[in-house]
Structures are given as structure tokens and as C-alpha cells.
């Protein structure tokens, strides 16, 4: 069977998602602030982002005379490509997966971390005081939250005994190769392998992973530089942070990178904690909802169901990120560091020890 690369799906989906994601962001913010949001271009302003893109592509390219030109030009490419490469290892369904490397989780963490280099390049090369402040904040923030992010992902790897994203996905559904017990306690003797649905997702399979997910979600917000962790680009104090000097299509690329990052961490969260491409609905006796909504692995139906479940769950978390952005005020810089080093990191270390105990006792 000819297996095509997932690139054919990811790239068009990413562009479409960004166009609609920016529209959704503006509409949701408008709804939260009791406004209408974009209404003029197209039906209910649907074509607003396309119009914005058309405008941006025609804008004059402005690079400040004092800037470091080569770095300035390369930075948006680094930011986008670092995030985009992360998509290469994601499994989209039970058979259609990206690069099947055995250390997918590890690779993903490494490639997400490269994003910060692009941000430092962009801010440093701009030779602008706002950019410089934004960059230093951004770097400190991203590396601080990298630690709890890595530790919370480690909890999942301990429970699943694997670094392979596809293996982790298989464990969370009706096609699990091993028998899955309710809350992963074998002594209870409740076999949930055949039931599937949300009961076999990692957060239900292993209740401690719910707390790991809370840490993961907070840290992933900080990794994306999203509010309430948007200090690097705090509009009211730093103009636009590290991309103050960027305009035209270079700015659009940075924006695309930011939205791609939101989607990437959402997909990663879904794969690790919320059942990956597995169905939400469980099998209840003769009503085999999980089987009906998954399809036999290898068939077209299973590929379509897999993409549907993975993407709908991920887009739900993207929507949650947008909702949080327009609900919470920005943190102060000392609070930001406190949350990461004094709360999330010690809690994550404790969770690892608890997960180890749970795994060995039951």
C-alpha cells in the first residue's frame, strides 16, 4: 500500500486553520467584549483574514537601517520552520502517521524548543529597544516553562512506557494491543479495552495524568506566548515585543508560526492525554459506538474518523486558548517566574514520583 506523507494534509490544513483561526479569535474576542467583530468583508466577515493577507502581501518591505539584515530576514523562516517540522511526527489516524521515529515525543520537545532561537534572532537583529526587552522576556519565559512542560510529558511516557506517539495513541482506544484496566488498577479487574471511548483515554486510564495535563496546559500557553503569558509582546507596554520592527509578509509569517504553535501544542495535548485519534464515544453493550466511530484500521473510514477526532479535539483546545486569552489579565513578570519555578516545577517533580509509585504498585 502506498503511504503518502502527512505533509499533503498538514500544509493545506495549517493554512486553512490559520485563516479561520484568526477569524475565530477576532469573533470570539468580539463576543466576549460585546462587540460585533469583523462584519464587512464577506458573509459575516468570513473573508476578513483573506483580505488582510492580500493587504500584507502588497506591503512594502521595511528593514531598519541599523538592523542586522541577514538575521532579520532569516528569523521568520526559523520561527515558522521550527514549528512546522514539529507536525512531521504526529500520527493522524491509526495507519496514516507522520515520520514513525521511535522517539517522537523527544523529537517534538526538541523542535519546539528551537522556536526560541528564532525569536531571539528576530528580537536581537531588530536593534530596537522594545524588541530587545520583548526578546529577553520571551526567552526567559519559554525556557522556564520548558521544564514543567517536559516533566508533565514525562509522566505520560512513564505511564505508557513509550516515546512513540503512535504507540501512545494505540494504547488509548479499542485497538490497544494490551489489556487496559479501569484506572489502570489490575486488581479491580474491570477490563475497559473493549469499551474504549473516553474511558481508555490517558486522563481516565490514569487519574494522576489529569494533574499532569493541567501543568502541561499552563506551560503550553506560556510556550505559545499566549495570554495570560503574553509578556513578550505585551501590546500596552512593549508595542509588539520581539516583532515590533516586522511588517508586511514577514509579520504574517511570524503570525502563522504563532498560530501553528497553538495548534501543535493542542494536538500534542490531545495525543498525550485525550485519546489521540480515538473516538470519544464508548461501546455500551450491543451499542458499539466506539467501533462505529473508529473504523477498522487500514480502511479509508478509519483514516477519516481518526483525522476528524484528532482535529476536532485539538480545535476545541485552540478555542479554549483563545477563550483564556480574552478572559484573564496578563501576569506580572515576577508572578510569571514564580508560577513556573515555585509551583509548576515542584508539583511536576512530585507527580513523577507519584506516577512511578502508581505504576509499580498496581
Amino acid at each position, binding site marked *: 500500500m502506498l503511504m503518502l506523507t502527512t505533509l499533503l494534509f498538514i500544509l493545506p490544513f495549517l493554512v486553512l486553520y490559520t485563516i479561520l483561526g484568526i477569524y475565530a479569535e477576532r469573533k470570539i474576542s468580539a463576543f466576549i467584549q460585546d462587540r460585533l467583530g469583523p462584519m464587512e468583508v464577506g458573509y459575516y466577515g468570513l473573508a476578513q483574514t483573506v483580505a488582510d493577507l492580500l493587504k500584507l502581501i502588497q506591503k*512594502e518591505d521595511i*528593514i531598519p537601517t541599523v538592523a542586522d539584515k541577514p538575521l532579520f530576514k532569516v528569523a521568520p523562516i526559523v520561527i*515558522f520552520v521550527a514549528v*512546522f517540522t514539529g507536525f512531521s511526527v504526529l500520527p493522524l489516524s491509526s495507519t496514516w502517521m507522520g515520520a514513525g521515529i521511535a522517539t517522537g515525543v523527544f523529537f517534538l520537545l526538541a523542535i519546539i524548543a528551537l522556536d526560541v532561537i528564532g525569536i531571539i534572532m528576530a528580537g536581537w537583529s531588530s536593534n530596537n529597544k522594545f524588541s530587545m526587552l520583548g526578546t*529577553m522576556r520571551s526567552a*526567559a519565559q519559554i525556557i522556564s516553562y520548558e521544564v514543567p512542560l517536559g516533566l508533565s510529558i514525562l509522566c505520560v511516557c512513564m505511564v505508557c512506557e513509550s516515546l512513540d506517539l503512535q504507540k501512545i495513541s494505540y494504547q488509548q482506544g479499542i485497538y490497544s494491543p494490551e489489556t487496559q484496566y479501569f484506572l489502570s488498577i489490575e486488581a479491580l479487574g474491570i477490563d475497559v479495552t473493549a469499551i474504549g471511548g473516553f474511558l481508555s483515554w490517558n486522563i481516565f486510564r490514569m487519574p494522576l495524568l489529569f494533574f499532569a495535563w493541567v501543568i502541561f496546559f499552563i506551560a503550553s500557553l506560556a510556550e505559545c506566548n499566549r495570554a495570560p503569558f503574553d509578556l513578550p509582546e505585551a501590546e500596552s507596554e512593549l508595542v509588539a515585543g520581539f516583532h*515590533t520592527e516586522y511588517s508586511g509578509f514577514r509579520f504574517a509569517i511570524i503570525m502563522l508560526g504563532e498560530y501553528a504553535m497553538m495548534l501543535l501544542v493542542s494536538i500534542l495535548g490531545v495525543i498525550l492525554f485525550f485519546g489521540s485519534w480515538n473516538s470519544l464515544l464508548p461501546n455500551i453493550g450491543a451499542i458499539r459506538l466506539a467501533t462505529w466511530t473508529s473504523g477498522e484500521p487500514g480502511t479509508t473510514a478509519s483514516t477519516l474518523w481518526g483525522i476528524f477526532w484528532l482535529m476536532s479535539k485539538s480545535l476545541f483546545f485552540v478555542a479554549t486558548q483563545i477563550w483564556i486569552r480574552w478572559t484573564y489579565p496578563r501576569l506580572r513578570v515576577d508572578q510569571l517566574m514564580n508560577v513556573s519555578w515555585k509551583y509548576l516545577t515542584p508539583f511536576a517533580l512530585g507527580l513523577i514520583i507519584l506516577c512511578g509509585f502508581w505504576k509499580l504498585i498496581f
Partner: protein
Amino acid sequence: MRLVWVLSLTAMDPRQQYLSDFGEILLFMIAGVLFVVVALLTSRLIRPDRPNAEKLATYESGEEPISVAWTQFNIRFYIIALIFLLFEVEIIFLFPWSTIFANQELIEQTNGAWGWFAFVEMVIFILVLALGLAYAWVNGHLDWIKPEPKPTEYKSPVPREVYNQLNERYRK
């Protein structure tokens, strides 16, 4: 032909399969770079190019920028980076361990000793690093500068009660 080889990941040899998996990652990188470069080139073809000195000046909210922005910055950033490095190296060591410490086969071969031995060893490792975090914490390396808001010195001629009354009236 080469494109078909890259696109169809159906190599028979497992080693070749593994290589082509990394080939796919490379494909994503190339596609990402191409996507951005093509978009920027398209932009270059249709955008105007009329630079002048004011346009190319550094943006500083309308002020004339004084000196460059490449100056020294707070030493705290380096300390945070050092602590980060410490923990990141720890995480690198923890990941391979996480896949093997509760391995059912190894536990059965050693009558359950393997799991607890591997676990206790790693707990000691984690505690040593937690000690490092505690050290940095106690010495105040994790404390960022906390802004202290100062109340304004301005004495308003309008008494405080008038404001409170107004607030009460509109609180509904």
C-alpha cells in the same frame, strides 16, 4: 522518481525504513522553508519599494532613537538559563528511563526487584536535583524584581467621600 521514493515510504529494509522516516522530517523542513520563501518572493514581485530615511529609522514611539539597543541586560537571565540547563539535562536522562523502569518482562525476570530498584535510584536522582532547585530558591535566584506601586503624592481637592458616594450610586 526521487520524489516518489520520498513520498512513498514503503521501504522493505527496516533500517532503510527508519532512514526514510527521518527523510520525511527533512521533507517537512524543506516544505516549510519553500512555503515561506515562495510567499516572500511573491510579495517581492508585487510590493512597492520606495524607502526613505524616516521610513527606515528604528521605531521608538516617534522619538529619535538614542544609541543602539544591543546593550547589557540583567544577570538574572543568565541564572535562569543555567537552572534551565540543569533541569533540561535531567529531563534528557529521565526520558529513556521512563520507558523501561516498569517493564513487565524485566520485573518478572528479577522477581519484582527491577522496578523498585530502578525507581528508587531515579527518585534519589530527582531529589538531588530538587535540592539544587531548593538551593536556588533559598538564595533568592528565583525571585524576580517585584514592582512596588507607590501611591500618588497628588492631593485632590475633592474629598474621598464624594467619590465613594458616586461609586455607591452607580453600583447596581
